[in-house]
């Protein structure tokens, strides 16, 4: 940091709100698509692995290997194929969600007590009805726990996308530029906003879970 540089420059911040806002929007674009696709893929994999027990181990292994691929290497490999685009950023970010989401989703489905499944089957639920009306709602607490973890992880990971260039940089771009130009206000902003985004997302999902699982609170409530 050059001498005389302020740690945080409020007037710069106020003067560049539009630029900061653009980075926030970019960051959203970076995380929402991988999360949605990751959730869909993981749900399908989890339902399959719960039905076909043998599938659990190989799926865990493959998603685990995907999780260990360094993101920089993934960008390098994908760039010649998908070019400098959001897709290059989305693919690794999606694969990183799979391990967390898949394991939580399967845990959610297997946490449904056997007597409830037997009662449902004995009363004449079809397999699909049982999945959608009994297993899925009862798995919600663990499903949401997985989504919370995955979203917090993805929000942090997405800052590295800045290496792909400033069209998709998101909050990572602020951080990179701040470091390169010895301007702390920028990297502090990038870091703080990223943390706020992560905490906000986490709180949002906690709220959502409470809203859609009223029965879980009932226990503590009456009686």
């Amino acid at each position: 940091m050059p001498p005389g540089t302020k740690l945080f420059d409020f007037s710069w911040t106020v003067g560049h709100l539009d630029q900061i806002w653009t980075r926030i929007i970019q960051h959203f674009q970076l995380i929402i698509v991988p999360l949605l696709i990751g959730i869909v893929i993981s749900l399908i994999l989890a339902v399959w692995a719960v039905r076909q027990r043998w599938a659990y181990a190989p799926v865990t292994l493959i998603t685990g290997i995907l999780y260990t691929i360094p993101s920089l290497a993934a960008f390098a490999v994908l760039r010649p194929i998908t070019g400098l685009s959001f897709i290059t950023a989305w693919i690794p970010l999606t694969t990183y969600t799979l391990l967390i989401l898949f394991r939580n989703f399967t845990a959610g489905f297997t946490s449904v007590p056997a007597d409830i499944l037997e009662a449902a089957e004995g009363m004449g639920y079809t397999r699909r009805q049982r999945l959608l009306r009994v297993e899925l709602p009862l798995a919600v607490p663990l499903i949401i726990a997985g989504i919370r973890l995955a979203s917090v992880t993805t929000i942090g990971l997405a800052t590295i996308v800045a290496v792909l260039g400033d069209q998709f940089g998101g909050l990572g771009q602020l951080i990179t530029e701040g470091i390169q130009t010895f301007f702390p206000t920028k990297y502090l902003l990038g870091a703080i906003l990223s943390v706020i985004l992560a905490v906000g997302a986490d709180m949002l999902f906690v709220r959502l879970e409470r809203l859609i699982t009223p029965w879980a609170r009932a226990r503590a409530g009456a009686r």
Partner: protein
Amino acid sequence: MAVQSHQAAVVEFDHVTKHYDTPTGRRKGGPTPGAVNDLSMTVPAGKICVLVGPSGCGKTTSLKMVNRLIEPTSGQIKIDGVDAATRELTELRRSIGYVIQQIGLFPHQTIGENVATVPRLLGWPKPRQRERSEELLAIVGLDPAKYRDRFPSQLSGGERQRVGVARALAADPPIMLMDEPFGAVDPIVRDRLQNEFLRLQEQIAKTIMFVTHDIDEAIKMGDLVAVFQTGGHLAQFGPPLEILAAPASEFVARFVGQDRGLKRLSLLRVSDVAMQAPVVARVGEPTADARQRASAAPNGYVLIVDGANRPLGWAAPDDLSGGDGVSAEMANPVSPLVNKRTTLKDALSMMLDADVQTGIVVDRTQSVLGLVTIEAVARKMREGEHSPAFDDLALLAAEEEEDADGVPVRADAGAADQAALEGA
């Protein structure tokens, strides 16, 4: 209850067998738990048939083959003559009420929604589902306004079990399958739930198949009892009194227990025994007449009753003296009062407690209907009694064991009990 259609179906097992492959893949070498071997029996419409036996005897397997949670290896299960295997699976299951020990209420649905499960699957209109679920909550003794919107986690074990029964009844199925339905609640609640369920069955008259490992519950709940033996054999099938009086094999005799005479006593009621007419003397009548009748009475006593025919007590000829006529003070109130619904076990116990041989049977207004004697009870117990050869074998074995301890042994428990009754 006008809302119940009283429909019930006949369930017929026709040479039904279920084999399981053992984990090692070998089928030979002893029966696997839960297997069923050539089961043939018919459960008549509107009756409670209890399947009872030790664990692994195939009773639960037999139950689950009715709604095809388990498919038989061979044989047929017919419901009102139709082979269950030919029916569409979900349609079959929705037409059969199902109650399990752990209840399996859906924790994410309210009590009202839980009860309306099958009507919802059947696509009933919403208002009708709601109406039906409230009606059923009321039938099982839960105030709909109070319970409808609660979640299962907010209910006690007994309340949840009632909801389980209501849910099974929701679409008015002709058959109910109950797998140890009262197994998870404490004995006091269990007793209450059993009584409530028996009262409910009087109204709904469903065909009920009920699994338990508890012989006392089987005897109490069953119109018919099917005793299963390890290996999936049906050891005996008949009314509980018949199974207690004449066990078909040594296994059944052992399973129902040494105290099966007492168990029969608890099933029989005072109304099952021939009552004797008492010799009575009314308060206020001349003592001389009463004394004369007392002397002539078979037991040497008259029963003094008040103006409303209520019993005051017994009087011997010597008690009946004085010129003011028969009075309440002359009566010795010793005999226990029983009614026609009192079990013989309770009546006998009361007589033994009071050290008398006679109980006075009264009606609801406490007026005398007649007398029940220990001798009459003993006579009733001899009816249908059948002491099979294996009983003697079992007792011989017991005798040898006890001899070793130097404890005197009775020749035959049943006969000794009767002798004791007659001699008392």
